[in-house]
Protein backbone atom coordinates (compact mmCIF):
# COMPACT_ATOMS: atom_id res chain seq x y z
CA UNK A 1 0.00 0.00 0.00
CA UNK A 2 1.05 3.58 -0.65
CA UNK A 3 0.98 5.78 2.47
CA UNK A 4 1.15 9.54 2.90
CA UNK A 5 2.22 10.69 6.36
CA UNK A 6 1.45 14.02 8.02
CA UNK A 7 3.41 15.01 11.15
CA UNK A 8 1.79 17.87 13.09
CA UNK A 9 3.91 18.01 16.26
CA UNK A 10 7.49 18.75 17.26
CA UNK A 11 9.89 16.06 18.46
CA UNK A 12 10.00 17.04 22.14
CA UNK A 13 6.57 18.29 23.18
CA UNK A 14 4.60 15.35 21.91
CA UNK A 15 4.86 11.67 21.04
CA UNK A 16 3.30 12.16 17.58
CA UNK A 17 6.52 12.42 15.61
CA UNK A 18 7.95 9.33 17.33
CA UNK A 19 4.80 7.44 16.40
CA UNK A 20 4.99 8.74 12.83
CA UNK A 21 8.64 7.71 12.58
CA UNK A 22 7.99 4.24 13.97
CA UNK A 23 4.97 3.77 11.71
CA UNK A 24 6.91 4.90 8.65
CA UNK A 25 9.82 2.59 9.47
CA UNK A 26 7.53 -0.38 10.12
CA UNK A 27 5.56 0.21 6.93
CA UNK A 28 8.77 0.32 4.87
CA UNK A 29 10.07 -2.84 6.52
CA UNK A 30 6.81 -4.58 5.62
CA UNK A 31 7.32 -3.62 1.97
CA UNK A 32 4.84 -0.74 1.77
CA UNK A 33 5.59 2.50 -0.01
CA UNK A 34 5.79 5.85 1.79
CA UNK A 35 4.89 8.42 -0.84
CA UNK A 36 5.87 11.35 1.32
CA UNK A 37 6.21 12.51 4.93
CA UNK A 38 4.91 16.05 5.27
CA UNK A 39 5.78 18.19 8.30
CA UNK A 40 3.32 20.87 9.36
CA UNK A 41 2.63 22.98 12.47
CA UNK A 42 5.40 22.42 15.06
CA UNK A 43 6.20 19.26 13.09
CA UNK A 44 8.64 21.40 11.09
CA UNK A 45 10.95 21.29 14.12
CA UNK A 46 11.70 17.67 13.21
CA UNK A 47 13.91 19.09 10.43
CA UNK A 48 16.07 21.37 12.61
CA UNK A 49 19.66 20.13 12.50
CA UNK A 50 20.62 22.58 15.29
CA UNK A 51 18.57 20.53 17.72
CA UNK A 52 20.76 18.75 20.30
CA UNK A 53 18.91 16.33 22.53
CA UNK A 54 20.73 14.98 25.59
CA UNK A 55 22.94 11.95 25.01
CA UNK A 56 20.50 9.46 26.56
CA UNK A 57 17.55 10.74 24.52
CA UNK A 58 16.64 9.55 21.02
CA UNK A 59 17.55 12.04 18.29
CA UNK A 60 14.53 12.12 16.04
CA UNK A 61 16.03 14.62 13.58
CA UNK A 62 18.92 12.23 12.92
CA UNK A 63 16.57 9.24 12.78
CA UNK A 64 14.44 10.89 10.07
CA UNK A 65 17.58 11.78 8.09
CA UNK A 66 18.84 8.21 8.33
CA UNK A 67 15.47 6.89 7.18
CA UNK A 68 15.51 9.26 4.21
CA UNK A 69 18.98 8.12 3.25
CA UNK A 70 18.26 4.43 3.62
CA UNK A 71 14.83 4.32 1.95
CA UNK A 72 14.81 7.50 -0.16
CA UNK A 73 11.77 8.75 1.76
CA UNK A 74 10.62 12.20 0.63
CA UNK A 75 10.65 14.42 3.76
CA UNK A 76 8.89 17.71 3.04
CA UNK A 77 8.67 20.68 5.40
CA UNK A 78 5.89 23.21 4.87
CA UNK A 79 7.42 26.56 3.92
CA UNK A 80 4.82 28.76 5.61
CA UNK A 81 4.91 26.80 8.87
CA UNK A 82 8.72 26.64 8.71
CA UNK A 83 9.37 30.34 8.16
CA UNK A 84 7.22 31.21 11.17
CA UNK A 85 9.38 28.96 13.29
CA UNK A 86 12.77 29.97 11.89
CA UNK A 87 13.32 26.73 9.98
CA UNK A 88 15.22 27.65 6.81
CA UNK A 89 17.37 25.84 4.24
CA UNK A 90 20.62 26.49 6.10
CA UNK A 91 19.46 24.68 9.23
CA UNK A 92 17.70 21.85 7.43
CA UNK A 93 18.89 18.37 8.39
CA UNK A 94 19.96 16.03 5.53
CA UNK A 95 17.11 14.41 3.62
CA UNK A 96 14.57 17.18 4.29
CA UNK A 97 13.39 19.73 1.76
CA UNK A 98 11.19 22.82 2.11
CA UNK A 99 8.18 23.14 -0.14
CA UNK A 100 4.57 24.28 -0.21
CA UNK A 101 1.36 22.92 1.28
CA UNK A 102 0.45 21.71 -2.20
CA UNK A 103 2.81 18.80 -1.51
CA UNK A 104 0.49 17.66 1.27
CA UNK A 105 -2.59 17.86 -0.93
CA UNK A 106 -0.78 15.99 -3.70
CA UNK A 107 0.15 13.32 -1.16
CA UNK A 108 -3.52 12.98 -0.21
CA UNK A 109 -4.44 12.61 -3.87
CA UNK A 110 -1.75 10.07 -4.74
CA UNK A 111 -1.57 7.93 -1.60
CA UNK A 112 -3.96 5.08 -0.85
CA UNK A 113 -4.08 6.23 2.78
CA UNK A 114 -3.14 9.63 4.22
CA UNK A 115 -2.39 9.35 7.93
CA UNK A 116 -2.16 12.22 10.43
CA UNK A 117 0.02 12.10 13.55
CA UNK A 118 -0.76 14.82 16.08
CA UNK A 119 -3.56 16.44 18.06
Amino acid at each position, binding site marked *: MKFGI*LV*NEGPFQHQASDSAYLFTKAALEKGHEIYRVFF*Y*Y*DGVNNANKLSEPQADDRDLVKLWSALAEEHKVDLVVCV*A*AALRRGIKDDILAPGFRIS*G*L*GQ*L*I*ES*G*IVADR*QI*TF*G*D
Partner: protein
Amino acid sequence: MEEEWDEDGPEVVKRFMYVNRKAPYGTVYALEMLEKVLIAAAFEQDVHVVFMDDGVYQLKKEQETKGVNMKNFSPTFRALEGYDVEKLYVEKESLEARGLTVEDLVVPVEVLSSDDLKSLMSKQEVILTA
Protein backbone atom coordinates in the same frame (compact mmCIF):
# COMPACT_ATOMS: atom_id res chain seq x y z
CA MET B 1 3.37 21.19 -7.93
CA GLU B 2 4.69 18.43 -10.15
CA GLU B 3 1.46 17.15 -11.64
CA GLU B 4 0.06 19.12 -14.50
CA TRP B 5 -3.66 19.62 -14.88
CA ASP B 6 -5.09 19.83 -18.37
CA GLU B 7 -7.76 22.35 -19.29
CA ASP B 8 -10.51 20.08 -18.03
CA GLY B 9 -9.18 20.33 -14.48
CA PRO B 10 -7.34 17.88 -12.25
CA GLU B 11 -7.07 14.24 -13.27
CA VAL B 12 -8.04 13.01 -9.84
CA VAL B 13 -10.60 14.68 -7.61
CA LYS B 14 -10.81 13.23 -4.13
CA ARG B 15 -13.19 14.00 -1.32
CA PHE B 16 -11.10 15.90 1.23
CA MET B 17 -12.49 16.66 4.67
CA TYR B 18 -10.94 19.12 7.10
CA VAL B 19 -12.10 18.66 10.67
CA ASN B 20 -11.62 21.69 12.91
CA ARG B 21 -11.89 20.73 16.56
CA LYS B 22 -9.91 23.46 18.30
CA ALA B 23 -10.77 26.97 19.50
CA PRO B 24 -9.44 29.72 17.18
CA TYR B 25 -6.90 31.09 19.63
CA GLY B 26 -4.86 29.49 22.41
CA THR B 27 -3.14 27.14 19.96
CA VAL B 28 -2.10 27.59 16.33
CA TYR B 29 -4.07 24.61 15.00
CA ALA B 30 -7.06 26.56 13.70
CA LEU B 31 -5.09 29.21 11.82
CA GLU B 32 -2.80 26.77 10.06
CA MET B 33 -5.73 24.48 9.25
CA LEU B 34 -7.35 27.34 7.38
CA GLU B 35 -4.19 27.79 5.31
CA LYS B 36 -4.39 24.09 4.48
CA VAL B 37 -8.02 24.39 3.36
CA LEU B 38 -7.18 27.22 0.95
CA ILE B 39 -4.47 25.14 -0.72
CA ALA B 40 -6.73 22.11 -1.27
CA ALA B 41 -9.19 24.43 -2.98
CA ALA B 42 -6.42 25.61 -5.31
CA PHE B 43 -5.95 21.95 -6.28
CA GLU B 44 -9.64 21.79 -7.24
CA GLN B 45 -10.41 18.95 -4.87
CA ASP B 46 -13.86 18.25 -3.45
CA VAL B 47 -13.37 20.09 -0.16
CA HIS B 48 -15.55 19.62 2.92
CA VAL B 49 -14.87 21.64 6.07
CA VAL B 50 -16.26 20.55 9.42
CA PHE B 51 -16.40 22.48 12.69
CA MET B 52 -17.00 20.49 15.84
CA ASP B 53 -16.14 20.57 19.56
CA ASP B 54 -14.47 23.93 20.36
CA GLY B 55 -13.83 24.30 16.61
CA VAL B 56 -17.30 25.87 16.30
CA TYR B 57 -15.89 28.96 18.07
CA GLN B 58 -13.74 29.61 14.98
CA LEU B 59 -16.89 30.77 13.19
CA LYS B 60 -18.25 32.96 16.01
CA LYS B 61 -19.20 36.46 14.92
CA GLU B 62 -17.65 39.57 16.47
CA GLN B 63 -14.33 38.10 17.54
CA GLU B 64 -12.27 40.73 19.34
CA THR B 65 -8.67 39.57 19.53
CA LYS B 66 -6.66 42.67 20.41
CA GLY B 67 -6.55 41.64 24.06
CA VAL B 68 -4.79 38.36 23.23
CA ASN B 69 -2.49 40.01 20.67
CA MET B 70 -3.57 37.72 17.85
CA LYS B 71 -4.87 38.46 14.36
CA ASN B 72 -8.61 37.89 14.00
CA PHE B 73 -8.69 35.48 11.06
CA SER B 74 -12.43 34.81 11.12
CA PRO B 75 -13.10 37.14 8.12
CA THR B 76 -11.12 34.66 5.98
CA PHE B 77 -13.95 32.14 6.36
CA ARG B 78 -16.14 34.55 4.42
CA ALA B 79 -13.59 34.44 1.57
CA LEU B 80 -13.81 30.64 1.25
CA GLU B 81 -16.76 30.93 -1.11
CA GLY B 82 -14.50 32.75 -3.58
CA TYR B 83 -12.26 29.66 -3.59
CA ASP B 84 -15.28 27.43 -4.29
CA VAL B 85 -15.16 26.06 -0.77
CA GLU B 86 -18.86 26.01 -0.03
CA LYS B 87 -19.37 22.76 1.85
CA LEU B 88 -19.16 23.92 5.44
CA TYR B 89 -20.63 21.77 8.18
CA VAL B 90 -21.13 22.33 11.88
CA GLU B 91 -21.93 19.57 14.31
CA LYS B 92 -25.30 20.28 15.93
CA GLU B 93 -24.38 18.90 19.34
CA SER B 94 -21.19 20.99 19.56
CA LEU B 95 -23.08 24.16 18.64
CA GLU B 96 -25.86 23.55 21.14
CA ALA B 97 -23.52 22.59 23.96
CA ARG B 98 -21.91 26.02 23.64
CA GLY B 99 -25.18 27.93 23.54
CA LEU B 100 -24.67 28.98 19.91
CA THR B 101 -26.99 29.01 16.89
CA VAL B 102 -26.28 29.51 13.16
CA GLU B 103 -27.18 33.18 13.71
CA ASP B 104 -23.98 33.53 15.74
CA LEU B 105 -21.74 32.38 12.86
CA VAL B 106 -19.85 34.45 10.27
CA VAL B 107 -20.79 32.22 7.31
CA PRO B 108 -23.76 30.07 6.27
CA VAL B 109 -23.22 26.44 7.26
CA GLU B 110 -25.08 23.17 7.13
CA VAL B 111 -25.82 21.89 10.62
CA LEU B 112 -25.50 18.12 10.92
CA SER B 113 -26.25 15.80 13.80
CA SER B 114 -23.38 13.71 15.10
CA ASP B 115 -24.84 10.66 13.30
CA ASP B 116 -25.19 12.47 9.97
CA LEU B 117 -21.66 13.80 10.30
CA LYS B 118 -20.42 10.27 10.97
CA SER B 119 -22.02 9.08 7.77
CA LEU B 120 -20.57 12.02 5.79
CA MET B 121 -17.12 11.27 7.23
CA SER B 122 -17.34 7.64 6.17
CA LYS B 123 -17.72 8.80 2.54
CA GLN B 124 -14.50 10.84 2.55
CA GLU B 125 -11.23 9.73 0.98
CA VAL B 126 -8.81 12.01 2.85
CA ILE B 127 -9.55 13.38 6.32
CA LEU B 128 -7.26 15.96 7.95
CA THR B 129 -7.97 16.80 11.57
CA ALA B 130 -6.65 19.35 14.04
